[in-house]
């Protein structure tokens, strides 16, 4: 008993470890978190998969043994208590009871017997008579002894449940692994090349495996994740995915995930077709197939590629598909494009304080651009402009490592909600041939400058110079120039003048680009000012964008892959059986109260001796005893 409670405590503590330390993460994450030394130690202790570690299983085994022994030891006496009326109680032993009463009576023994048995029956007691050695008649009665079954049920239930759990655990694999017959595969190789030691046959009695099926594809293997590797689980049939669907609520949150599956098996006359969804699995040949998650299944993509540093607004077309690669640029400068993920819906909370409703901001695409030294920058681009503080922008996030947060380039939309406006403006700002004209236009509009030709010329030159600097590295370049050539005291004033000048230039540049495309010009108002500010910020930020390419997603053909989980769990029925026993057991142990009554009729003395006992003495028992004592008094007296 003490041993069992200690085992329960150890089990509790072990379980806590398993919840505090995130289980089954990729091993690199643990190394980053703990450092090499602790990582190795924790791995030896099996802390990354506590619930499947040898020692955890050992505790469970001990618990089964200890509980079984307990059942073995206690059951005979429980059954005896359940059956017996304890009619051999002697007068002496009754006298020792804490709950007893003696009544005097004039009634005859037969009359008493009749009254008392009626009383006991009414109270739900079963009874037995016995004539004592001293000639007195004993009525021994019991009620609620079924409670004793509660103990048996509860504890057998625990053994049954743990047995079921062990059936579904990976004990067979663990033993084979220890004996050297099996090993996990840790390399990312095609399934067909996984060697037999890392494959589980169709006769494997229990498993929990995953399978990712793109639409239109079928397969007959699934993967079991183990520690930092995997095993291939072969299936006795093929599963094909016809279609995968996600439905959404009006707010954009996912409402349902559904897969149309086809089971292909030579044993079947006709393939089985069935739609599964979360909470609605399909079971075939003892293997249950669940909808567990989803992925991209190779969506095809069409991009317009902008070269951010070209002094023109020409674009190039690029097509690709998720999980495939493309190339941008040529020679040494060429970049490999790796298309990683496409999401059709993105639910983001865009309100500034995070309190508003999340909303769907449309599709995005995640890709990496890798140079010939293997260095990659990861990008995430949203297809549609997003509203931030009341204005709309195209967003593109970039980061150099997975640990970093994405930093976003915000490109303001033009009047047509496109990015051409910005791109044309950017091209004009990068085109040195346009600077003189920009400068002239500014000068023409300035009263101070246009009067004196000498001043005008000098002014125009300085504008051209400023634009040249700005085109090379944005605001940072301007700041560097100021730092180098202006005394500290005047820097702020000069900076202000330059910024003013850049924004005036931007106004002219923007309008020139609009003129060239036969679009209406920008008016001078607040909206224009904020558009120019955003455009200049975006222009400045492209120098931190990492690569010269902006991939604007134009079109896509969505193809999804369904994530299925396949399980075979022969222990389940045992666990359920145990659960039923457990509930029955607990309820009978707690809500059936065992009580015993002895009534000894002493004919010679004209007395009735009443004694009552229970294996659980509590207030209910006290109350009941007091009630019976009074009722018996009026019955006998």
């Amino acid at each position, binding site marked *: 008993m003490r041993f069992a409670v200690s085992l329960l405590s150890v089990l*509790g503590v072990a*379980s806590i470890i398993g919840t505090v330390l995130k289980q089954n993460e990729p091993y690199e994450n643990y190394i980053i978190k703990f450092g090499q030394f602790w990582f190795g130690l924790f791995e030896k202790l099996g802390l990354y998969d506590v619930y499947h570690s040898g020692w955890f299983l050992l505790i469970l085994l001990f618990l089964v043994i200890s509980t079984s022994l307990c059942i073995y030891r206690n059951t005979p006496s429980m059954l005896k208590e359940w059956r017996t009326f304890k009619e051999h109680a002697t007068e002496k032993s009754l006298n020792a009871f804490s709950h007893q009463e003696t009544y005097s009576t004039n009634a005859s023994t037969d009359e008493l017997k009749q009254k008392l048995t009626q009383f006991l029956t009414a109270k739900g007691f079963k009874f037995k008579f016995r004539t004592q050695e001293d000639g007195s008649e004993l009525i021994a009665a019991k009620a609620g002894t079924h409670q004793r079954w509660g103990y048996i049920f509860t504890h057998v239930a625990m053994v049954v449940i743990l047995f079921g759990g062990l059936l579904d655990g990976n004990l067979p694999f663990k033993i084979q692994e220890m004996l050297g017959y099996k090993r996990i595969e840790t390399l990312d190789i095609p399934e067909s090349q996984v060697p037999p030691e890392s494959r589980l046959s169709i006769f494997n009695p229990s498993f929990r495996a995953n399978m990712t099926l793109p639409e239109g594809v079928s397969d007959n293997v699934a993967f079991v994740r183990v520690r930092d590797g995997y095993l291939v689980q072969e299936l006795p049939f093929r599963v094909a995915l016809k279609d995968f669907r996600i439905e959404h609520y009006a707010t954009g*949150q996912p409402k349902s995930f559904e897969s149309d599956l086809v089971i292909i098996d030579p044993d079947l006359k006709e393939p089985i077709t069935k739609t599964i969804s979360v909470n609605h699995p399909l079971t075939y040949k003892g293997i249950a197939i669940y909808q567990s998650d989803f992925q991209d299944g190779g969506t095809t993509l069409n991009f317009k590629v902008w070269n951010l540093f070209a002094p023109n607004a020409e674009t190039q077309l690029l097509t690709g598909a998720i999980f495939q690669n493309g190339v941008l640029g040529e020679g040494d400068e060429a970049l490999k494009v790796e298309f990683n993920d496409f999401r059709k819906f993105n639910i983001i909370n865009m309100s500034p304080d995070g309190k508003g409703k999340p909303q769907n901001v449309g599709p995005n695409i995640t890709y990496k651009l890798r140079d010939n030294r293997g260095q990659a920058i990861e990008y995430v681009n949203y297809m549609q402009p997003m509203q931030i503080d009341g204005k709309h922008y195209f967003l593109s996030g970039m980061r150099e490592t997975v640990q970093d947060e994405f930093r976003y380039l915000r490109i303001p939309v033009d009047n047509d909600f496109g990015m051409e406006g910005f791109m044309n403006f950017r091209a004009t700002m990068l085109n040195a041939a346009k600077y003189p004209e920009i400068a002239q236009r500014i000068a023409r509009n300035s009263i101070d400058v246009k009067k004196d030709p000498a001043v005008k010329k000098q002014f125009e030159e300085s504008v051209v110079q400023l634009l040249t600097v700005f085109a090379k590295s944005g605001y940072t370049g301007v700041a560097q120039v100021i730092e180098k050539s202006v005394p500290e005291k005047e820097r702020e004033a000069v900076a202000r003048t330059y910024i003013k000048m850049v924004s005036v230039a931007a106004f002219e540049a923007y309008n020139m680009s609009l003129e060239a495309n036969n679009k209406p010009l920008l008016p001078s108002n607040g909206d224009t000012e904020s558009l120019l500010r955003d455009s200049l910020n975006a222009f400045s930020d492209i120098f931190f964008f990492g690569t010269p390419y902006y991939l604007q997603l134009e079109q896509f053909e969505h193809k999804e892959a369904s994530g299925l989980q396949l399980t075979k769990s022969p222990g389940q029925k045992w666990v359920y059986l145990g659960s039923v026993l457990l509930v029955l057991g607990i309820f009978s142990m*707690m809500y059936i109260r065992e009580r015993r009554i002895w009534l000894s009729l002493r004919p010679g003395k004209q007395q009735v001796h009443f004694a009552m006992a229970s294996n659980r003495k509590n207030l209910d028992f006290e109350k009941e005893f007091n009630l019976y004592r009074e009722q018996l008094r009026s*019955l006998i007296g």
Partner: protein
Amino acid sequence: MNNSLEYQQKTLLQSLRWQDWLYALIVFAGSIFAYVKYSQYMDIYEVSFLFGAAALASYLGWKWKGLGKLVLAVGIISVFSISLYDGEQAKATQVFLLKFLISSQSAIMWMHVLFVLAMVTYWFAMYKRSDFAGKVASALTWSAVLFGFVGLMVRWYESYLIAPDVGHIPISNLYEVFILFCLITALLYLHYEQKLNTKQLGGFVLLVINAAVGFILWYTFDRQAHNIQPLVPALQSYWMKIHVPANFVGYGAFSLAAMVAAAYLLADKGILASRLPSLDVLDDLMYKSIAVGFAFFTIATILGAMWAAEAWGGYWSWDPKETWALIVWLNYAAWLHLRMVKGLRGPLLAWWSLIGLLITTFAFLGVNMFLSGLHSYGTL
């Protein structure tokens, strides 16, 4: 010779009066009405739960008349409130009675207010040893429960007004189950209060409930948690309707036991001893509510396992919530063993059940705050 029959106890059915039958009739008429009106939203299991709930409400109402009155009042006020909505969500802020009394948000706010008042009154009653104040406190608690249930029923209806596919029973996120927790804990307490006539414990039990109220208020005003959200696919299952309530009977009963334990420990030290029930009564009550909690928690965990088997592909995944449920369960199993097998009584067990509340709270709240897992709903 009629006196021989005096000790005859009537069975439940024999003891029923015509009012009790009428009550059951109304409850069943109500559920048939609900069935006729809303059966298109229910599957076969949910229909059986509806009538099962009616049977349960009848049975409990027969055993405990106070509960019967509550069921009727909740039904009548909810139907009235729903009729005021008249199919438009906007009415909640336009119609006077809804806006200030029985729209789901207002009713829940009233629940908060009444729980706070009830607690203050219970303590006042204990301090003054005033029977009258004790009765007022009880009445306040009953009213809080009434408003809380009305709030939940109306919220259920409101969720369907947002969009038929959004509609769902309001026990699906942390905000909603906290309300459920307050209501169940209060009901369990009221039951024992009536049975054992122990109004002195109200102040203690309402401490936990008001802690929950505080949390709900913070969660409402800081996180806007009262907004009705659609259900993620994993939660769209009839299992939720039985798994969650069973769990919360467990949590409620464990909390009740912990508060009784607190009273026990004080009384044991002589503090408030003259105002509190005797140690025996407290001990008995603590055992009873742990027993009830344990039974329901067992059922809830089993139901959870069955649901997991259907939704996640395995009856046990060692998901943090599951694992903590197991820890809570093991904790109380050990408690029961010590009491039943070793015959242990007294302060040690009281301390244990008080600490049990910390473990339970972590399973209930801490897991959502600090650990991640498949129970993805209800993060803070």
